[in-house]
């Protein structure tokens, strides 16, 4: 029984991890329901300006208003004050897919957090 204890502890830990919901896209935060995110593509222009494309779909049965933005962070993880981080309004069409493209404020932007808010 003593030799089994470590295995039991490991099994319990694995079960706990399995029950927890893991966000597959930690750089995308959705406020509100009825949105499914399918894919997030990170890329860079030739001179190092970061871009992100978020693909998803509305799960709502009717059109919903929403807005989105990307907050960009520099190398020291400080948020960059930039006009490209202003909220952009959009209409989520019922059960239709959507693609959001956001470009960073320059090559000094290293990290991002996309926020999508369903209103």
């Amino acid at each position, binding site marked *: 029984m003593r030799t089994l204890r470590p295995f039991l502890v490991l099994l319990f830990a694995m079960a706990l991890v399995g029950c927890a919901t893991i966000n597959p896209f930690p750089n995308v935060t959705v406020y509100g329901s009825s949105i499914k995110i399918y894919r997030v593509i990170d890329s860079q222009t030739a*001179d190092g*300006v970061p871009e992100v494309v978020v693909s998803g779909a509305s799960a709502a049965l009717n059109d919903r208003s929403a807005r989105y933005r990307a907050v960009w962070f520099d190398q020291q993880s400080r948020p960059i004050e*930039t*006009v490209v981080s*202003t*909220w*952009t309004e959009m209409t989520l069409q019922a059960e239709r897919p959507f693609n959001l493209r956001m470009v960073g*404020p*320059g090559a*000094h932007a290293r990290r991002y957090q996309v926020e999508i808010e369903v209103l």
Partner: protein
Amino acid sequence: MYRILLIFLSLALSSACLARGVEKVDGRVDRGPTTVGIDYRDFEDAASDAVQSLLSSGAVVNPDGGRYVLMISRIVNDTMQRIDTDQLVKKIRIELLNSGRVVVTTAVSGDGAEDRANFQVREDLRGNDEFDQSRVQRRGTLVAPDISLSGKILQRNLTIDRRKQQIEYYFQLTLTDLETGLAVWENEFPIIKRASNRSVGW
């Protein structure tokens, strides 16, 4: 003495009444109603779209290295509103400067020198014995622009029916390579609003 005190009190009261109902808006999270005319959010949206398009297009990447020198040409206000086009241009300038790709000259612009001091210090101080001539700007030090930004803001008012109208605004911008005269980047950002016919967009 009492009269002065009364006047002071009434002034304080009236200013307090004026201040009531005034709220300061946090532009970063403002969800206030949209206006018929062009408001600050429209300028922000247009600037954000233009900057993202410019940076992702590669049009402001100098193949010789270093930063491009940009001059601001004419941005025509072809709307029924009295707007200062700097509300749009300034945001774009700040972003391009911060991106590290572009620096803007204030010595040349579509309406002459944006900062007259560029020429004033040369015309007035050069040869003036009152000034240390070793510190006066020398001839041939101003940097000529490589690219120029021009554009237009358009407005169209359309009647939908007896009660409603559609107001369309178009923010059009062009980046020109001054060596060749070719437009190397162009962008149009439309903003469409619908409102009561009784609303006036100016």
